[in-house]
């Protein structure tokens, strides 16, 4: 087990029998399991996020000109951590409902007024930081900016969930069916949609 992983799972544990045997048997699952199952309940509060200059800006600048504002030390590590953590992804699903993302993208991300999130087209990039940027900064034609309205942690969790809608996450991390009416195929059962390279973001003039 890598030391980082061990540190994260660091919790008081009772001694258990057959420790060595169990470890040896499940080492392959261990690395994945450890991160997948962590519940980081006491994360430090997000770093301050500048509220948008005008509250409720719906049409921020174009994709290219607005670099992603990532405050964590290492965005890649942070992104991986969120995307490997089932609890974080399930929280993302909760925010998707709470913040009414489903109002435009439909429950399960099938798309309605807003573009579908479960297909292979990514107007503004499919990488996790790009999705976070889309959420925080908004996109032309209707996607509001959520910077300052949700915590950064929530944005990452939300983005991870959004990526699970098109099968980008491991199936043991992505969520199962919802306790609700018709929310489509469970995320964990979705085929991975290979992001189409030709679906580049439109340049906004």
């Amino acid at each position: 087990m890598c030391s980082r992983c061990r540190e994260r799972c660091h919790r008081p544990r009772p001694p258990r029998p057959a420790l060595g045997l169990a470890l040896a048997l499940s080492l392959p699952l261990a690395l994945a399991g450890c991160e997948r199952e962590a519940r980081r309940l006491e994360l430090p509060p997000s770093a301050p996020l500048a509220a948008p200059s005008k509250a409720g800006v719906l049409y921020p600048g174009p994709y290219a000109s607005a670099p992603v504002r990532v405050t964590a030390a290492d965005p890649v590590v942070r992104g991986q951590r969120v995307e490997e953590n089932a609890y974080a992804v399930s929280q993302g699903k909760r925010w998707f409902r709470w913040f009414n993302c489903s109002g435009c993208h439909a429950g399960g991300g099938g798309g309605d007024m807003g573009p579908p999130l479960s297909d292979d087209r990514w107007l503004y990039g499919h990488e996790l930081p790009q999705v976070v940027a889309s959420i925080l900064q908004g996109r032309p034609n209707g996607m509001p900016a959520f910077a300052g309205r949700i915590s950064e942690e929530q944005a990452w969790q939300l983005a991870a969930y959004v990526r699970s809608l098109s099968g980008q996450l491991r199936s043991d991390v992505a969520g199962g069916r919802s306790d609700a009416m018709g929310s489509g195929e469970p995320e964990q059962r979705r085929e991975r949609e290979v992001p189409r390279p030709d679906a580049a973001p439109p340049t906004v003039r």
Partner: protein
Amino acid sequence: MATRIRPLQRRPHARGPEPRTFAAAALAALVLGLLPLAAVAAPPFGAGSQDALRTGGPQAALILDLWRLLLAVCGVVFAAVMAAFGVALWRARRGTRDTPPELQGPLRGEPRSARLVAAATGASAVGLCGLIVASVLTDRALARLPLSNALHVELTAHQWWWQARYDDADPSRTFETANELHLPAGRPVLLTLHADDVIHSFWVPNLSGKKDLIPGRTATLALRADVPGRYRGQCAEFCGLQHAGMALEVVVEPDAAYAAWAERQRRPAEPPTDPQAQRGQRLFLAGTCAMCHAIQGTDAAARRAPDLTHLAGRARLAAGTVPNGRAQLAAWIADPAAFKPGTNMPGHRYAPEDLDALVAYLETLR
């Protein structure tokens, strides 16, 4: 008087020089040094405020009577069985490994033992029938609580808080609150129970037995609170990480006091006048708060988290886990997970003056 922030749950591990520690220290300095310090208004819950043996209404009292009856009957039966057992042990002869086993008696049949066992069994059956009757009678008495003139409250359980809507024939007079029920003494209440996510259970032991709130189903519970006072209720069905931190405060007060409270609840929040509070309101509406919370009379109308229209009038924050006061409110906003690990409310790193303003605004929501 300065009140120390006392988290419900101390963090299990220090995380080294994390921003959190720094933030907490800064916050504490800020809260203790700069803010005009407010004494905590919350009256503490004492022993017996969540107690099935101290009743505040007829439903709980009926059950308590049944408990006393069962305790007496079972106590007598237990004593009788123990006495028989004791006498048997005391009077029986002693044996060892080499005692030849007694086979003749069992072969001949043991009429005396048989008679005693039969008699004891018969007595048990009769006693049990009595208990069944007592139980059924109590059940029927509970169901007969008169409900004319009942107050209707719709209670929805969420992970991990209680949402209450006070119904009224006149829709404009319904209002919403959270985590703190006020009930008029002596007037029956009909609770309609829903669950938003998982199964919870409504339980205020001083007032009534419990009832589960199950997603996809609706249940009702009738109760009456006769004795004014503050009672504590708690979710009684394991509902996830903060099951322990899902309390409900029930304030039973005389009719007039209740009416005044209800009238206050119906009013939207008053716009703040103080510039600091006004700034706080802007922060509230433009920030993360309004994504989940509602404040009547403002644009904040989300219903994912407790309605804050009259937050400052409540004794406690976060479903009964944190006493309501300036310092606590600030600490809670900054780092809710320190009090309720697992809560769905995110932490915030506001600049000190922003936090100050926000708290000042929330303090105006009386």
